[in-house]
């Protein structure tokens, strides 16, 4: 074995003086089993890091961790590691980088394939920008995290931490150090339990089916952290569910969510009246709530007996020697719902007896208050200590019951205890208030417009009408993939009048591309030839097929059995379609394309001119629209040519006048395009989207957010029978377009220069 100075003299001598000694000391260990070439790469990497300013100590950590990467995954993975290392160094500093190298061995053991390592490094890269301070705790926990989460789960978990605590570094640290209850619950749920977002939709159906009412279900606010155990709460008729339920005793998380939802809905149905807090002691408040829980459940079970089987598994209290307030209340809860449960305790028996007595007047909420108050007196005589501050309602599926109490009339007699109750309730309501503005209404899909008047297809002469109509903003929902809801009326789309340019530009395009136009024309003819005009030899039809009749008559004369197919009828026009060409007009379309000697926008314009020419020639019904965006409040939408509007001078002038500016909020534009197509009655409806990059906007920093929203928008259109096809000019598009549009519904054009001929050809292929 040569020393490092002998083996790689040039690279070695390039190292800073101070580093040489330490590198030399670490080299033997590091270079073992590496090829000469790999050794060079390793050393080169160290030099690069030193140059970036990582410091000698970190370089030594690198030399300890990196060889394993080289041996197990190869050179490209080391390159990836180095890239991410520089990013970590830049955003989070040397100690974070040191921590990365330190933790790498335990992470590597859990990432068997190079691809997984790359994904893991990708998450680190993403986090180093979004939340550099979270990196060290993440590295410290990396072994445990990777044990419990798949990589995409880890990513979601990490991003949720960043998003939820964007402003509070302390809470964020708690999250990544796994000190936060939410962080642990979500971690655990990802492994074995269930997240609220995964069951939200089916719970919605479930509650609507059972109770025939709109029940708003929302995830709990994350700041509910650190208070009493995670429970469902009901604020202003909205059921707030924990984001993840810890798994319970062999019950799956879905069952727990369902039990919780059914219980909360029973409250909404039967606990309409609030109880006055007045002179009740805390233990009485707790017991009145408990009886009210039982009352609501009994009323629900009266109608739907199967609900008992849903709730019962969560009641696991047993008569034990431990004699605490909480266990007594759990036993009472169980005694009230479980007829087969035996408990000798006098308090439990008395509660059971009183409830049984009241069974025939369950509809009266006052019985809960009455029984609860009496039981509270009993409780007081038993001298069992009870602390409302630490009291958590059991079993797990029951909500916190704060909604049962009217906090307003406690008046001056308010005791300290009542103050406690009041405080927790206030906190609750505050949280509810924050998000109540985010309540969605049920209407989805269509644009929400402040006014009922819809700008219809207007002729060019009605300029004033256009102006008025165009200024009407449209409001669209936007999908938040992290939270799993549509943010209601989130995006404002404004239709703007397209400024006309010189229509001769478009004619010149056609002249310049006369070769392409000729080819297109022959393709169009071929498509038209395929159009069936008359279907002959039909068993039935609206006319006689003369040829077939003659044949049949001959058969008859000859004494043969004739072919009965003697009719003909008009075949349906197979080109019954409506196409909307949607152009991305963002700033990036002004980029120069060296190979073509022009800009992306010019190429898009040429392509659009050619495809419009083709569609017009075919007699297809089509529209050409475009969009750009400037944050969610300003998505600009241009209609260059509408359906039913001739492709004339004006339309061509508008095409000639289009400009590229601002950003690309694709989802909203797609929804608006879909809004127009939905009004078309065609057998096939298609949005042909032409874009040069992924969706982005100035007010969105999470790259995935708009991608997921666009995907959602595409799915929405599909549900309405509208197909979306994307022609992307971004060579790196493969990574996201498949996800957005589906495997077959996109095409990535590598040679921009060829766009003008590709687009019309693609169109013909798609539609014939």
């Amino acid at each position, binding site marked *: 074995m040569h020393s490092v100075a002998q083996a790689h003299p040039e690279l070695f001598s390039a190292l800073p003086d101070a580093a040489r000694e330490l590198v030399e000391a670490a080299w033997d260990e590091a270079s073992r089993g590496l090829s000469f070439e790999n050794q060079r790469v390793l050393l080169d990497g160290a030099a690069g890091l030193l140059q970036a300013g990582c410091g000698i100590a970190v370089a030594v950590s690198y030399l300890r961790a990196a060889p394993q990467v080289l041996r197990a995954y190869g050179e490209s993975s080391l390159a990836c590691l180095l890239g991410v290392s520089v990013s970590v160094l830049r955003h989070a500093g040397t100690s974070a980088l040191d921590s990365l190298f330190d933790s790498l061995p335990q992470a590597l053991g859990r990432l068997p394939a190079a691809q997984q390592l790359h994904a893991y490094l990708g998450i680190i890269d993403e986090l180093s920008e979004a939340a550099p301070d979270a990196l060290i705790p993440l590295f410290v926990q990396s072994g445990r995290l990777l044990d419990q989460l798949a990589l995409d789960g880890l990513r979601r978990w990490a991003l949720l931490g960043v998003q939820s605590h964007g402003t509070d570094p302390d809470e964020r640290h708690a999250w990544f150090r796994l000190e936060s209850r939410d962080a642990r619950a979500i971690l655990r749920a990802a492994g074995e339990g269930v997240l609220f977002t995964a069951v939200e*939709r*089916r*719970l*919605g*159906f*479930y509650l*609507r*089916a*059972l*109770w*025939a009412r709109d029940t708003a279900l929302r995830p709990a606010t994350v700041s509910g952290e650190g208070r009493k155990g995670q429970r469902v709460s009901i604020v202003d008729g909205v059921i707030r569910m924990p984001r993840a339920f810890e798994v319970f005793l062999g019950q799956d998380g*879905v069952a727990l969510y*369902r039990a919780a939802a*059914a219980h909360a809905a029973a409250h909404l149905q039967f606990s309409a009246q609030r109880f006055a807090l007045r002179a009740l002691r805390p233990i009485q408040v707790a017991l009145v709530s408990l009886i009210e829980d039982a009352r609501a459940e009994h009323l629900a079970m009266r*109608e*739907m*007996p*199967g*609900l008992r*089987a*849903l709730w019962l598994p969560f009641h696991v209290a047993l008569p034990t020697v431990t004699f605490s307030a909480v266990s007594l209340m759990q036993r009472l809860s169980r005694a009230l719902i479980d007829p087969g449960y035996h408990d000798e305790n006098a308090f439990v028996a008395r509660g059971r007896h009183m409830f049984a007595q009241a069974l025939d007047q369950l509809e009266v909420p006052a019985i809960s208050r009455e029984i609860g108050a009496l039981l509270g007196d009993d409780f007081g005589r038993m001298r069992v200590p009870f602390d409302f501050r630490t009291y958590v309602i059991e079993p797990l599926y029951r909500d916190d019951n704060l909604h049962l109490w009217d906090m307003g009339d406690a008046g001056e007699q308010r005791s300290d205890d009542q103050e406690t109750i009041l405080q927790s309730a206030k906190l609750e309501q505050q949280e509810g208030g924050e998000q109540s503005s985010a309540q969605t209404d*049920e209407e989805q899909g269509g644009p929400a417009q402040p006014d009922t008047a819809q700008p219809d297809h207007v002729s060019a002469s009605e300029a004033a009408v256009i102006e008025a109509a165009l200024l009407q903003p449209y409001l669209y929902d936007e999908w938040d993939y992290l939270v799993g809801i549509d943010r209601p009326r989130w995006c404002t789309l404004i239709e703007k009048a397209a400024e006309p340019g010189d229509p001769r530009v478009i004619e010149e395009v056609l002249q310049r591309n006369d070769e392409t136009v000729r080819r297109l024309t022959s393709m169009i003819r071929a498509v038209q030839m395929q159009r069936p005009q008359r279907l002959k030899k039909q068993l*039935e039809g609206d006319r006689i097929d003369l040829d077939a009749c003659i044949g*049949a008559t001959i058969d*008859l004369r000859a*004494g043969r*059995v*004739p072919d*009965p197919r*003697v009719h003909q009828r008009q075949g349906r026009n197979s080109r019954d379609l409506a196409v909307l060409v949607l152009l991305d007009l963002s700033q990036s379309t002004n980029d120069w394309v060296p190979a073509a000697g022009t800009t992306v926008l010019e190429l898009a314009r040429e392509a659009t001119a050619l495809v419009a020419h083709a569609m017009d020639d075919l007699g297809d019904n089509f529209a050409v629209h475009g969009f750009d965006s400037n944050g969610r409040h300003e998505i600009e939408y241009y209609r260059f040519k509408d359906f039913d509007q001739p492709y004339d001078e004006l339309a061509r002038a508008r095409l000639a006048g289009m400009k590229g500016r601002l950003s690309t909020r694709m989802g909203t534009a797609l929804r608006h395009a879909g809004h127009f197509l939905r009004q078309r*009655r065609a057998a096939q409806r298609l949005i042909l989207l032409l874009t040069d990059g992924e969706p982005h906007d100035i007010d969105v920093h999470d790259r995935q957010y708009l991608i997921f929203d666009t995907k959602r928008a595409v799915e929405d259109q599909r549900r309405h029978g509208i197909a979306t096809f994307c022609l992307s000019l971004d060579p790196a598009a493969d990574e996201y377009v498949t996800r957005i549009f589906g495997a077959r519904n996109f095409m990535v054009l590598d040679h921009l220069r060829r766009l003008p001929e590709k687009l019309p050809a693609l169109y013909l292929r798609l539609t014939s």
Partner: protein
Amino acid sequence: MHRLPSENSIAQYVIDEEPYYRATGQEVALYEAAYAVRMPMMLKGPTGCGKTRFVEYMAWRLGKPLVTIACHEDMTASDLVGRHLLDAGGTHWSDGPLTLAVRYGAICYLDEVVEARQDTTVVIHPLTDARRVLPLEKKGELVHAHPDFQLVISYNPGYQNIMKDLKQSTRQRFGALDFDWPVREVEIEIVAHESGVSPQIAGMLVSVGEKSRNLKGHGLEEGMSTRMLVYAGQLIAGGVAPAAACSVALVRPLTDDADMRDALEAAVKAFF
């Protein structure tokens, strides 16, 4: 050579046994009054709520033959009125079911009439006003309706499709009866009678049905029909466990949406 079908061919359309029908309101009396003046009738209501059974029952009650035509998208006018057929001896005319009913005085029932294309349904227009005639253009014959003839159509107004609706010119020729899910007690009685389960089981089935109808327009196009409940009841009566019967007869036919199925199965569990 013309071979006219004999009057006997209409005899096969006569209903001999009384079909089970449980009246839910005044529909029997109203229909009888409408038949007395041969008013064309339109039965509106969701699928599986008893429209077809009602027509069968009324035909039996009035002692008239009933010609039922299930309409579909590819149905042409010739499918209704008839066509020339070829055989070794030449051509002969064959009456369609509508013509048959018109000639020999049957009740003609066009089931789910919106499924047929609108240009097909206009052939019924001359039959549904004072003329009461059916022109057979291809044959050059004008058939005057038999005094007993009556036209009845049915359709489901909840069907969400802008393309499939009745034209005003068609719908204004009919008197209409609205059908909906029977009230709870009646539906229980129907399910119990038709399937043979106990009223208690029938009650639970009806509850499940009611729950599913809450989801109409919120993920479901249509709730569970009485007919589906009867099917589920028949399975239960045949010894199938209630939860499995509901799954087979109620939940799975209704939707392919996994979340929706899960929610419906859970709703079933709230009763069984």
